């Protein structure tokens, strides 16, 4: 019995038109979504705790703080300020961004500050490639200020060096509470994503070709496409789907800090692509399973002719399906506590590949049910083998 002999070669134009149509739809959807992609988030996962004040600072007084960032496109910095006035007043600051002794960006900021701590955002033209560079933020209180100003400090020592007030360093653990910011859109989000991969744009292209092309290839197997042109059409669809999934993930990552660096964007991408590819693979694998069922129920001349063999085969199918359910539920469930961590020097941890869509319950229950069904299969097989041997002996 051959499982895959029932297909008829089809000319280009059947499933390939469907594939190309779907690909066009995916490309259009991607284009629309891509237009609205925007990342507007801090570049540090943890915000500073601005609970201590540096000051009072008179006009001309300044505070400096060094910092570094781990992702591309630095477009701004938040710092925190307050004044002793009872109501908020107009305030102006001169903000400078140094790299070594070179001023990289400089601006005069107009804002309002009051007795409560306010965050002041300084947006500037993007520094496209800040990784591996050390910057120094200098905030100078503007000449127009009528009341003393306090800039807020953090004691969590997240930043390199210490805050420097009017040229004098503070304690090593005292930082100016600053938060580098990134506000980028469309192509810049894609370039930032590519910059996190080995090989940059080329690396992203290879990844998309491999993942999208692979998905397309599996889909072509599901559609039983014939010939390289039809396969190519399905691979184009796979590629467009991969593009769409990536753009959806770019969209979803808009408010995360450095989603491309901290394993936030990629798990979502691989999860969706994995589910799509897994579904397609399951469809491919379902074919022989279907044929197996077919074979068992319609086997006039085969060996599976009596009710015991048919029942046993059916039980095996049930056991396979329940086990498969348990396996899929296990991959889809959430992370477990790991008490013993194996240190990994490049990626920091071993990922078990949990998807996080389910709780532990379904996998655990399905594993128990599968075990029971397999035990029933085993008992049945044992009884069948004993009875067959007895029959042979008599």
């Amino acid at each position, binding site marked *: 019995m051959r499982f895959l002999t029932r297909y008829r070669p089809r000319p280009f134009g059947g499933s390939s038109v469907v594939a190309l149509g779907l690909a066009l739809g995916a490309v259009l959807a991607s284009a629309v979504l891509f237009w609205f992609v925007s990342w507007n988030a801090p570049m540090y996962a943890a915000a500073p705790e601005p609970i201590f004040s540096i000051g009072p600072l008179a006009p001309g007084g300044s505070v400096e703080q060094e910092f570094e960032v781990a992702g591309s496109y630095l477009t701004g910095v938040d710092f925190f300020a307050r004044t002793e006035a009872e109501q908020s007043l107009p305030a102006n600051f001169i903000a400078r961004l140094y790299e070594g002794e070179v001023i990289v960006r400089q601006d005069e900021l107009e804002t309002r500050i009051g007795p409560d701590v306010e965050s002041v955002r300084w947006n500037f033209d993007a520094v496209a490639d800040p990784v591996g560079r050390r910057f120094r933020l200098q905030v100078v209180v503007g000449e127009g200020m009528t009341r003393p100003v306090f800039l807020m400090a953090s004691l969590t020592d997240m930043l390199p060096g210490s805050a420097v007030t009017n040229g004098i360093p503070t304690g090593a653990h005292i930082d100016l509470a600053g938060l580098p910011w990134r506000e980028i859109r469309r192509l810049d989000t894609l370039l930032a994503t590519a910059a996190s991969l080995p090989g940059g744009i080329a690396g992203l292209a290879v990844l998309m070709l*491999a993942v999208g092309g692979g998905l397309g290839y599996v889909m072509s197997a599901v559609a039983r496409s*014939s010939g390289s042109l039809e396969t190519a059409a399905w691979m184009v669809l796979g590629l467009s789907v991969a593009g769409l999934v990536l753009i959806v993930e770019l969209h979803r990552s808009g408010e995360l800090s450095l989603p491309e660096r901290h394993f936030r964007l990629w798990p979502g991408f691989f999860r969706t692509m994995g589910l799509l590819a897994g579904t397609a693979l399951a469809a491919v*694998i379902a074919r022989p399973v279907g044929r197996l069922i077919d074979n068992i129920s319609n086997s006039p001349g085969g060996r*599976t002719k009596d009710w015991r063999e048919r029942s046993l*085969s059916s039980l095996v199918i049930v056991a396979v399906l329940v*086990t498969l359910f348990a*396996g899929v539920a296990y991959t889809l469930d959430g992370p477990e506590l790991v008490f013993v961590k194996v240190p990994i020097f*490049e990626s920091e941890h071993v990922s*078990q590949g949990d998807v996080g869509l389910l709780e532990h319950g379904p996998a655990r229950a399905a594993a128990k049910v599968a075990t029971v069904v397999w*035990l029933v299969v085993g008992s049945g097989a044992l009884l069948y083998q004993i009875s067959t041997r007895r029959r042979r002996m008599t």
Partner: protein
Amino acid sequence: MLKAITVWGRQTPIAPVLIGLYVAAALARAAPVIRLDYAPWWDGVGYGYADLWTGEALRLAGGDFAALSFYSEGLLFVPAQAILFRLLGVASGMHAWAVFLVLVSAAIVPIAAHTVYLITRQLIGALAAGVLTIFDPVSAWFGSNGWSDAQTFLSVAGTCWVFVLCARKPTIPRLLLLGAVLATLALGHTTWLYPATIWALITPVLLASRKKWFPGAQDFPDSGIRRGWLRRATAPLGFFAVGALITISLISVGGAIGAGAETDGPFNVDRNNQRVLVVTYDKSIEWDEWTPSDTVRVILTIFPSRIPDLVPSFIHGHIANAVHFYRWVLLATLLATFVVIAGRRQNPWPSRWGLLGLLIPGYFLLLEPRIEVPTVALTYLTIGVVWMYIPVARVLMVLFGPILGILILYLPLTTQARHSNAIVFLLILLASIAIGMAVGQVKRWYQDVDSRRFMAGQRMLISAGLIVLVGVGSVSTANAIGERLAEGRYLEWLGEQMGEDALLITVADVDPWQVLAVTGRPVIYDVENGARLAIEPGGPERGDDMLAEFRAYDDEEAVFLALEQRGFRLWFYSPWRGAERQWFDPAFTGSRARERIELTKVADYPEQIGRAALMVSR
């Protein structure tokens, strides 16, 4: 030329895959060593145990054969290192040793891949084994961080490979080779003595039925006593002969077998391990009261009742957490096994021997019903299903059974990830065999439909996989080389900043001989983990004794004071990790109380913003 390569590739399709996997593995293994995440002189954490074998290799290189020792677990590892020390000196020898370990560790990858290929004859199965082995984090780490487990990993992989070769065709040379490789497994590490012996003893029994469980068993005249059992007994005979030869040679040159071996027999060379085992499991026995029979009694009476607690801990804490994408590996194994089941359309139920596999998930259901962790349940289920339907997997599980047993037995005591890696290796083999067999089954289904397209798809997948693997390995190695070159430039600059009276203190993840050669100043290496080496220009490469007196000091400050009183100005070097160090924790004295020592920037390094030359603040 290209045509010749293409023809060769078609004739022996596995060869290019193995070469590609080896290159990818060597690159992937080399990157962390070049970057000095770990290296033979720095194990990556600070256990410092590798220094034991390095010390023995130095003694052996100096002609002291008493350095050869079975119970220190470096009997086969130490001589190889000693040869390099003898030929190249300490510094160059250590660097050559690092390269050697990387190349040997990478060899496990094609060995695993070829083992799977011999069983399944499927390239995708071989590729799966290769990929999983390349990214086996413990094998990569302990394969090249100076621990003797590197030799054990190689022996485990080599034993599986030669065993499979014997199952395919049990010629006398192959059986002798199996005995020899098993002897290396037994003698390399005391933990593996018993499992290797059991492996050797059951080999004849398993090989007698090889045609029932090995899919590619070749016809071979193995009937009759002379050609059958006597031939198959070659493996255990070879094992005991090689073991005896090495042991006698060791004794004759003055090496050590093990404390107690003389009185308690050779299988009690690990008597202290057995003592601690017995007193842990049986609180009524005192340390000095132990006798070898207590070990047997504890294993037979007390250990079984602890198994339901120990096995889940082992799976959860030693296997699932040491395999990347463990859940997907299990799922792929299950899917592949179901394809194999679908291939047995006429009788999809398990055979009599296969039914024994039900004991594995059945045990879980009956004895561990309260298990809340799906990882453990799914592991039992997967292993049980694989046992039921893949006969060769059963045989491998039987062979690894004693290893698993001893690891679980010692789980409350000494079992570590470097030991349990053998079971990770087994899991990789089982998953890859299932995948290879499933691909073989799908190939049979496709045979009359469009075999050419299937083959083209398979080749495309394998080529893409190898290109990605080699590409990733090349990029990470190139990055690591770039980082080391940048460190070299920094060290040159640092050498210019320091005066003649400088003494350079370093952290662990540096190459002390490179630091000495580039800066030309005395170096105290790995100050935070015991200041393990002191070397100076013109001094011995293995280090001098200047640190010995400091071990008796009460506090770290006193050590720095003493160094300054001798006229040294103390500088500090640590590789660039994105921010400059502001302090360090010295550990000269071995005292538990750490004292943080501040560092002072004395000059800015122009090439890396934020980096500076650092001096010890006092």
